[in-house]
């Protein structure tokens, strides 16, 4: 098993454990927006097909690659909608988390998008591919943590009832 596969298994397993440990919290407490759920579903879908290949020790190709790439536009769309309509975080913790989430999304999308332009040679392409793999893994974990309620919840502003 490749080092990336081991890392992916650890990160995704850790995310699942964290979500299960936080099960007393209301699932999706901070992901009430439809966009958040869409983002999560698209990310899980795209990630699923990619990680099947990763855990098989294969290069992502064939039908798995096709499914992965067809779900990519959904992820881009969902994240864009979220970015447009998600209210600015209330509380530094939540805003910081959102900034991280959006940054990971930008890295995952950008590293894949830039590969499609004739800007980078073989080494650049390989670098972008690695950037895509790691940022996507981190994005998937972050989205899972948010959906599972582990992610920093909205901090009530002063004067607001909790």
């Amino acid at each position, binding site marked *: 098993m490749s080092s990336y596969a081991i890392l992916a298994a650890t990160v995704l397993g850790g995310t699942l454990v964290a979500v299960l440990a936080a099960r007393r919290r209301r699932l999706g407490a901070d992901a009430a927006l439809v966009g958040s759920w869409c983002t999560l579903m698209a990310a899980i879908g795209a990630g699923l097909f990619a990680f099947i290949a990763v855990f098989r020790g294969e290069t992502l190709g064939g039908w798995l690659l096709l499914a992965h790439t067809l779900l990519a536009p959904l992820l*881009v769309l969902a*994240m864009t909608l979220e970015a*447009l309509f998600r209210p600015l975080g*209330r509380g*530094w913790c939540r805003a910081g988390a*959102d*900034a991280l989430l959006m940054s990971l*999304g*930008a890295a995952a999308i950008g590293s894949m998008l830039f590969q499609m332009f004739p*800007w980078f040679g073989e080494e650049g392409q390989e670098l972008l591919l690695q950037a895509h793999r790691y940022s996507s893994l981190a994005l998937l974990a972050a989205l899972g943590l948010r959906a599972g309620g582990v992610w920093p919840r909205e901090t009530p502003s002063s004067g607001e009832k909790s």
Partner: protein
Amino acid sequence: MIFRFATLLFAAAACNRAVAQEATGEAARPLRSDSRAQYVHRITLYDATGVAIDPTRASAPPYSPRATCGKCHEVGLIGHGWHFNAGEGGPSGRTGEPWILTEGNAGIQAPISYRDWPGLLKPAALGLSEWDFTLRFGRHLPGGGVAHPDQPAAGERWGISGGAEIDCLVCHSADQQHDPAEAERQFERENLRWAPTAAYGLATIRGDAMKLPDDFDPDAPPNPDYPDLLPPRVGYNRTLFDGDNRVFFNITRRPTADRCNFCHSVQTVDAGGLGESSAPAPRDVHEAAGMSCTDCHSNGVDHMITRGYEGEAEERRQPALAAFTCVGCHLPDLSSPRNMDAPPLAARQAPRPLHRGLPPIHFEKLTCTACHSGPWPEAYAHRSQTAFAHGLGVPTRARTVESAPEILAPILTRDARGKIAPHRLVWPAYWATQEDGQRRPIPVAVVRKALGLKESGSLEPLREFNEGELLEAIEKLMRETKTRGQVVYLARGQVHHAEGQTIVSGPDPAADAVTWPLAHDVRPASQSLGIRGCGDCHADDAPFFAGNLGTAEDAASGAGRVISEYRGDDLRFARAFHWAIAGRAAFKLAATAGLVVIGLAALRNLVWVMTPNGRRG
């Protein structure tokens, strides 16, 4: 009788060779100049028995490259190199171009080889002895190996013609003084042992060994009853000899491409006609850049010439060979200590390709040659003619566009390592008996006799049999072979046999196409697949997937097949992928806009966190 002569001749030759080698100390240590400068070869000529040749003698024998060059060079070791060792049964390496036994009017084009490459028949299976093989294909054999057997078979005329020794000058002549086409003319006359002398223009040869009777004894004195029954006479050109009877050989260690091209020429022929190979401009980008074949296809004294394919270094357990592949030269690992071992490559300054925008998966699925070599893939395969198969290099008026065998290219199919690479393809066509579950090819001579055909040579078009002709031919062959089973005809991937008065046809693995990878001519980056974008390959009508396995005529007759189907691709996937690729431009636009929005949102949140309001929250 002939066997006795042959045995005597070869025993004497072997004995003399051993004596000559011992005398010159070849086995102990070859004579060396150890200079970068080319040694000037002004040398004495020796005959096959190791005796110096006196050109003034009326009965002077032909010179022997083995005895002459063997004075200083390790001819024994050289004789096991790639060009000569097919019959030795050693490793075969990557599949290469087979010989194709062609009898157009008998419907035969059978790929054969002494090497163990998949799908090929052994020459003996079609009734070809080493003698027959040498006469038929000697035009493009450098001598040695099967053309110069140590143990000549009984009943063959080796004793009269002599074996075809390795003619070093086929490759190592630095100029055009060596004429391989003249050697071919001598082969046609069975003057095997005289061929090197004639080819280098050292002498004119008068007489034909083929006209001598089978029981002719070359060592016997002239027969007073038949005074004209003499072996070919050698009339040396005395102006080539100096006062000490030495001859200047203009020899090079690094043969020019012209020497290689005599045997390794290929031309693409289509309805437009022949003659493409006569175009004056170099057709391979490396040749155009001033390189020679031997810059990459080099060798040591063992003459195991580097073939330059991926995996060769591992197969031959010589890691240094990896430097002589496309990747080794154009994408070398500069951090590797081995890189320092290859100064000539660095000196060549091979351009390092950028492959901008090309997803890395392409390097796993395709060889470099898939995008860079051979004719540009089009809707239909092109007919190719090669020196081995069509005798390119030998002047003839008989060669036409339709001349058999039918070799098609480029065929983008998987190689032995599972990567897609351009190949040449030929459909085996031959007759066989099928008895007790065993299928045995019928020797060509038997087919000719049964069908009442003369030898067609190899340049007639391949005959297409209609059902009636096929039935008639099968009936004649049944009678001739006296088989208890049935006679079948394999052609175009099908096996045909008679059931009553009907021909029944069906696919059969033995009739599958034989393919071999092609690596040249290499096209420049500006003419490589993908230069116009992904659509060069990833489109429903792109030849990479939708190209036809046959020519336009094959497709018109319904005999064509789509390349991706032949390759075993998942066509549904290919179509779906092309559909996805078609939406790529729109996706790139939308994703760029999305990326900007997401990036700004990330920035907005970050700025907010850093403001006093955010920090207070």
